């Protein structure tokens, strides 16, 4: 019997020891819940949870007043001086701005951060904020092209074999022409940075004046802009770039043979096959590829100076030239994307990956002890999926504005346990109240004055359904939603008030506008079209489907979770009852749903959009022809023209009028979407115990302003 007991005793002893070894956790002044923080690298962030933390750790040239969402001076000592043409912003940095290691924050720290953020190797999600810098996109293109020049040498053999196989098996390409009749699918527009870029190059380098600048063209590592080959990217040019970089002779010969072979005749193919055999081995190419990659890394900084309009005349001055008019640029310099990065840390953690030649920064730099930040806090502890502990940054220049000594972000994977933790006083604030399954009941309790610690706040986002506006559906059958009368009809029969009253029940405001009203000062959203079922039925009849006769069965596409299904069912019922058509529901997991929506493989699909900056453009860009998030594939010349006019309109007032006109095209006329309601965010905190939480729709939270009420 004793023998049987021994394992149990050992087990118990092991448990006791391991529990005793569990370190005690610090409690923290203010405790805030989070569900999922993916990164603390500000340039990698794109979820609002992460971004909130970035403002605790970092401070840009400008900062925000969280309650009004107005930019206020941050590291810059005042608002920027703006040139006459509104394209050049000059910032003067304050003397006392310091990193958490005590060293001063200089203009170089900003320039470096922006340069690193523009590299494809690092993959920032909000890179478009950096495209506002003059030449920012050109620099990105250069960096991407110079990288692909190296990788295409590395994969020369594999790519050649693939090409050979395709040439042998696939019939000559005819499929490309299939869609030409579908004139709603406009060809991809020429890159908007091109004219500017060409102008610049021609001005600075007279010898390039006869070169053809049809995109895409290539750049080569090791070749400075002075003797660059700026032509369109044919294989000939790629070879020319390799020649200019003094590529090793055997590799150059192989690349010539492979890349220049057109693979048209049988002789070509025979020659190609034998040439593939002559490609040098990976091992023998590696040193030369590494040389090119190292050269590229060396070129990163001079090329940035060459191409991008960011100048640092002295340590405390930074002059930023813009690619185009950006009326909200001051706000952009306050965002997490343009915050500075600490030079020595970046240097220490950046390295060249020798297998795929990316210039990477080791994410370990964001760990406590490694990360040097310049905001109100520093990270002192980060236990994965458990908690993140932020302590007051002793070197922060505005230390007296920091109202607490530490913030503990506590992870809750389930909304229920988060709510229990809040209810029992384990956490002080949560911004994820809308994920609680009984959030609607909680909101009701507030309206009944039974609780005062649940706050439903309008967000800067629209919950909407998007119509596919293409002529034909991917299945090949004609798309009824190509007709704007049908889209208008589908809008008019939806009773949005009943959806927010009976389905979502958080007190959301129904909206017929596209840009959330009353958030942007001076901008007045158009009225949109409201609930009018009779008019809707009449429109459907006008479009050729009286009483829904002849209208094909349609499918509502939505992703699972978050109550999307309930809203979809309500829409299904409204459309079926009012328009007498057949509506099916299709629920998909996000990973399947998202690619389908992106490819416009749907008739009607659920969607949502939150603004990135305080300007209508962040919403209106969504319907510009050819933009990445334009899932409806809406394309309207008048609309594009209005947006372009607005982009070149220096007077903010006049610009807003143009944008209002553009929005009216969407909400009053063409209706590529069905806007339903303004998102609600649900915050949990007891206003008698904590102050400082902002209720501004932008959900801008500055943790250092939080203060416990004693």
């Amino acid at each position, binding site marked *: *019997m004793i023998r049987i007991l021994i394992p149990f005793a050992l087990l118990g002893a092991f448990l006791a020891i391991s529990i005793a070894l569990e370190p005690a956790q610090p409690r923290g002044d203010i405790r805030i819940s989070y569900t999922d923080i993916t990164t603390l690298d500000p340039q990698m962030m794109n979820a609002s949870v992460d971004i909130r933390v970035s403002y605790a750790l970092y401070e840009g040239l400008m900062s925000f007043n969280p309650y009004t969402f107005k930019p206020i001076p941050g590291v810059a000592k005042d608002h920027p001086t703006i040139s006459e043409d509104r394209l050049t912003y000059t910032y003067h940095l304050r003397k006392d701005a310091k990193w958490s290691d005590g060293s001063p924050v200089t203009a170089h720290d900003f320039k470096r951060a922006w340069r690193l953020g523009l590299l494809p190797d690092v993959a920032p999600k909000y890179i478009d904020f950096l495209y506002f810098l003059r030449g920012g996109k050109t620099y990105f293109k250069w960096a991407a092209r110079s990288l692909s020049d190296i990788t295409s040498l590395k994969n020369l053999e594999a790519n050649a074999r693939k090409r050979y196989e395709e040439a042998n098996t696939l019939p000559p390409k005819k499929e490309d022409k299939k869609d030409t009749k579908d004139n709603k699918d406009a060809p991809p527009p020429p890159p908007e940075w091109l004219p500017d870029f060409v102008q610049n190059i021609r001005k600075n380098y007279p010898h390039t004046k006869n070169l053809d600048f049809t995109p895409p063209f290539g750049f080569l590592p090791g070749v400075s802009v002075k003797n660059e080959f700026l032509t369109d990217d044919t294989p000939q040019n790629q070879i020319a770039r390799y020649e200019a970089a003094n590529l090793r002779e055997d590799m150059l010969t192989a690349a010539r043979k492979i890349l220049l072979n057109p693979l048209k005749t049988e002789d070509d193919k025979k020659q190609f096959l034998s040439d593939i055999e002559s490609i040098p081995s990976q091992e023998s190419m590696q040193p030369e590829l590494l040389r090119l990659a190292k050269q590229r890394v060396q070129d990163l900084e001079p090329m940035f100076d060459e191409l991008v309009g960011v100048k640092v005349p002295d340590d405390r001055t930074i002059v930023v030239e813009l690619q185009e008019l950006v009326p909200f640029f001051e706000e952009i310099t306050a965002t997490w994307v343009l915050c500075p990065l600490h030079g020595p840390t970046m240097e220490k953690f950046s390295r060249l990956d020798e297998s795929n030649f990316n210039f990477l920064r080791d994410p370990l730099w964001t760990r406590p002890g490694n990360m040097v930040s310049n905001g109100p806090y520093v990270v002192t502890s980060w236990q994965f999926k*458990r908690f993140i502990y932020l302590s007051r940054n002793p070197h922060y220049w505005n230390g007296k504005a920091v109202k607490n000594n530490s913030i503990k972000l506590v*992870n809750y994977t389930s909304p229920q346990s988060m709510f229990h933790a809040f209810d029992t006083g384990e956490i002080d604030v949560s911004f994820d109240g809308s994920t609680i399954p009984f959030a609607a009941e909680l909101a009701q309790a507030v309206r009944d004055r039974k609780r005062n610690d649940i706050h439903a706040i309008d967000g800067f986002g629209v919950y909407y359904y998007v119509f596919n506006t293409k002529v034909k559906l991917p299945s090949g059958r004609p798309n009824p939603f190509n007709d704007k009368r049908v889209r208008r009809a589908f809008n008019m029969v939806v009773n949005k008030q009943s959806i927010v009253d009976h389905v979502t029940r958080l007190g959301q405001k129904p909206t017929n506008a596209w840009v959330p009203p009353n958030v942007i000062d001076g901008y007045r959203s158009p009225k949109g079209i409201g609930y009018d079922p009779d008019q809707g039925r009449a429109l459907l009849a006008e479009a050729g489907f009286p009483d829904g006769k002849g209208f094909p069965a349609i499918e509502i596409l939505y992703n699972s979770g978050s109550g999307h299904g309930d809203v979809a069912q309500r829409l299904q019922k409204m459309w079926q009852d009012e328009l007498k058509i057949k509506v099916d529901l299709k629920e998909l997991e996000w990973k399947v749903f998202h690619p389908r929506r992106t490819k416009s493989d749907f008739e009607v699909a659920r969607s949502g959009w939150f603004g990135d900056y305080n300007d209508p453009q962040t919403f209106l860009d969504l319907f510009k022809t050819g933009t990445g998030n334009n899932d409806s594939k809406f394309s309207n010349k008048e609309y594009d023209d209005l947006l372009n006019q607005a982009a070149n309109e220096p007077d903010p007032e006049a610009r807003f009028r143009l944008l209002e006109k553009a929005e009216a095209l969407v909400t009053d006329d063409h209706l590529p979407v069905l806007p339903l309601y303004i998102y609600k965010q649900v915050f949990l905190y007891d206003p008698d115990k904590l102050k400082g939480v902002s209720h501004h729709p932008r959900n801008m939270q500055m943790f250092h302003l939080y203060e416990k009420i004693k």
Partner: protein
Amino acid sequence: MTRLLVSRLIQLPILVLVIYTTTFLLAWSIPGSPLDMADERKPPPEVQAAMQAQYNLDNQWVFYWEYLAGVTGIHYLQGKSEVVFDFGPSLRYKGWTVSEIISGAFPVSLQLGLGAMLIALVTGIGAGVIGAVRRDSFWDFSTLAVALVGISLPTFVTGSVLLTIFSVWLGWVAIGWGSFSQMILPMITLSLPFAAYIARLTRMGMLDVLGSDFVRTARAKGLSEKVVVTKHALKVAFLPVLSFLGPATAGAITGSFVIEKVFNIPGMGQHFVSAVQNKDLFLIMGVVILYAILLIIFNLLVDIAYSLVDPRIQHT
């Protein structure tokens, strides 16, 4: 014994390789891209291409061999990696390696699982023995009833009930993980189904054994009932429990998604589920390989324990 050990240790890498390959094929067939997260922003195509190349996502067989070389330490021997067993980075949580994620979560699950198994063994065997010795008594029926409830009730029900009573109503323990008091409730919850099953196994085994000849002999020798039950009968009746223990322990210490969610425990279970949802390939492979190895090891331990407890069993 040695032969058993040697043959199992030879089997281990082959089994793990088979499991690795199967998981790999299944994980790659999950629709969607691991770089396409549930947010509304898409990086530029150049960035996607660079990332695909970075993580070998552009070619699944390159991924297969590269990952295998990393995990088995070949990359380390070649000097390509600084860690011996490189499980790769998490695609979702940039900046965290799979090894770090597992080494943070596994000790938690290990504590929870071992604690639960300890409780399950003590209560399960105790209840089983009482039930068998006092057959058809009140105690027998009540332990059987409790065992039936323990098996039937899903843990999210028992867990939520316990949590509501002790954390929300009584306020005795804070929700979370860290102190000993916070561990008790989840351990009990996790132990319930195991305890119930062990109780039934023990009771059945005991009933079988108590009627057998050698027990009658022991009683005839004049041994006290206590000695007969604990020293002679239990040893044999314990065997079916022992074979259940291997996979059960492996399962318990690799985490329970439901219990982790209810009690907000930073354990392994969540990664089995969320890694698949995020198509976080490296993390999927990492947790599955760990689970496979643990399962094989625990089964081996059970076999060893078998031959220690019951010398009649000869492993060939």
